């Protein structure tokens, strides 16, 4: 699905991480952890092609990121669901329209009942007609997750998807991601929340990787 080979990324002042190699296989479930500023969000952005690495090879759905055109990248993103940390929306559209955006933007049909079910799953049925600026942080995160999965992606990349949610809602959303994973979707979640990782490991075979000391390491054996 997505593979990084010998990837390094520099931010002017120096390397954020070096020589990272990882493969996100179909049906795999990963957690990405690490201290603030270690480069988790940058790593995620490289995984969906918003950033190009300083060195190394990134392969998105069997295509080399370096040789992809903007349309190639758009085509790849049809199959990659992303929950961004900043949860950007189109503020002039309703929440429901925002959630349906990946289908709208790629001309795919939208099933009203599926959309309603999804809005119900993330607990936003009552807020379907609300505009994003009126949403709370938690509501934005739930909407961002709904938007990321509405098109049935092959890969789900979620950057701190439960940071503003209570434990009950975090578990609910995690179960949604686990269900998707059981249906074959590869999942990568960047998070600080160790309880969330413990909860997931009880449900699914999840691997934990950690960015620390500018390298990527396997971790989480103790969890």
């Amino acid at each position, binding site marked *: 699905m997505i593979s990084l080979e010998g990837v390094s990324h520099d931010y002017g002042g120096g390397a954020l991480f070096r020589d990272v190699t990882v493969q996100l296989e179909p049906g795999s479930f990963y957690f990405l952890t690490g201290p603030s500023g270690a480069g988790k969000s940058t790593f995620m952005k490289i995984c969906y092609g*918003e950033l190009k690495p300083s060195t190394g090879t990134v392969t998105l759905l069997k295509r080399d990121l370096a040789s992809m055109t903007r349309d190639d*990248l*758009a085509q790849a993103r*049809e199959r990659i669901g992303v929950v961004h940390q900043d949860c950007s929306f*189109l503020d*002039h559209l309703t929440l429901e329209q925002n959630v349906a955006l990946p289908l709208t933007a*790629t*001309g795919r049909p939208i099933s009203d009942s599926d959309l309603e079910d999804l809005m119900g799953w993330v607990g936003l049925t009552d807020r379907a007609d609300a505009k994003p600026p009126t949403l709370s942080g938690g509501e934005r995160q739930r909407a961002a997750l709904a*938007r990321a999965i509405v*098109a049935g992606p092959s890969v789900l990349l979620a950057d701190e998807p439960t940071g503003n949610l209570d434990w009950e809602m975090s578990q609910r959303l995690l179960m949604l991601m686990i269900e998707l994973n059981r249906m074959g979707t590869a999942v990568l979640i960047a998070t600080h929340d160790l309880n969330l990782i413990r909860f997931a490991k009880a449900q699914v075979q999840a691997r934990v990787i950690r960015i620390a000391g500018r390298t990527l390491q396997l971790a989480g054996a103790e969890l």
Partner: protein
Amino acid sequence: MSTGPIADLVVPKAGQNVWLVSLSAAAMAFLAVFALALSMSSARLADSWAQALSETATVRIAAQPDEIEAQTAQVLEVLRTTPGIAAATVMAQSDQAALLEPWLGPDLPLDMLPLPRLIEVTEFGGGPDRQGLRLRLAAEAPGAVYDDHTRWRRPLVQAASRLQSFALLSLVLIGGVMSAIVTLAASVALSANRQVIRVLRLVGARDRFIARAFVRRISRRALAGAAGGTALGMAALLALPDPGSAVPVLAGIGFHGLSWLWPLSIPALTFVLAWASSMATAFHVLRGVT
């Protein structure tokens, strides 16, 4: 929920630049109606002048008072027997006075002036052999000069043709200015909505989808503005006061009959122009937005 209506909404409605497009399109369409009317009128005028003058001629007889009647009779006889001449009529004194009135005023003492005698000639079938006719007139009536209006006709037709060229050039300039305004508006709209573009890109939208979302809005505004401007321009032409036959050039400006359909093409052309300009701009700007 269908994708169509939302696809139309992905670009925010707000933005003064879009209103600028409507206003500019209205103004440009208004001017284009007049330029088109001028172009068609000048073409019509050139044709009518060329046709009217090409079928008429004048014989001017300047002779001593005691010879003028004899020379007039000789000229009429020559004209009567010349192939290509349909009719020849001596112009009445009252008609000559009417011709001179705009320059010399009314109550003209025509009897006191040494005016030449004028004979109006109507030609047919390409007219007479002018060179031969001039030689015959010189032999029969030395004071007669055959004037087929060529020296009047040529500059008049040239002036009308040039007027038509200027009008067409104006249409091209109007189109160019409209295109420039749309390009500017599209560029501003895209730059002001970088966040929208980023979100659309992240959910898998291709450049074509993003460009169309912006282009649709701008083109529709241009179409609406141009339709309003065209309607206003046509109404203004209809409201032009009729100067009557006293100023035939002014009386000819406008559309006649089915030619009123021509200005209706202006909104359609504006839409096509706006679509093409804004689409080219959108793709250019999108290349620079990562």
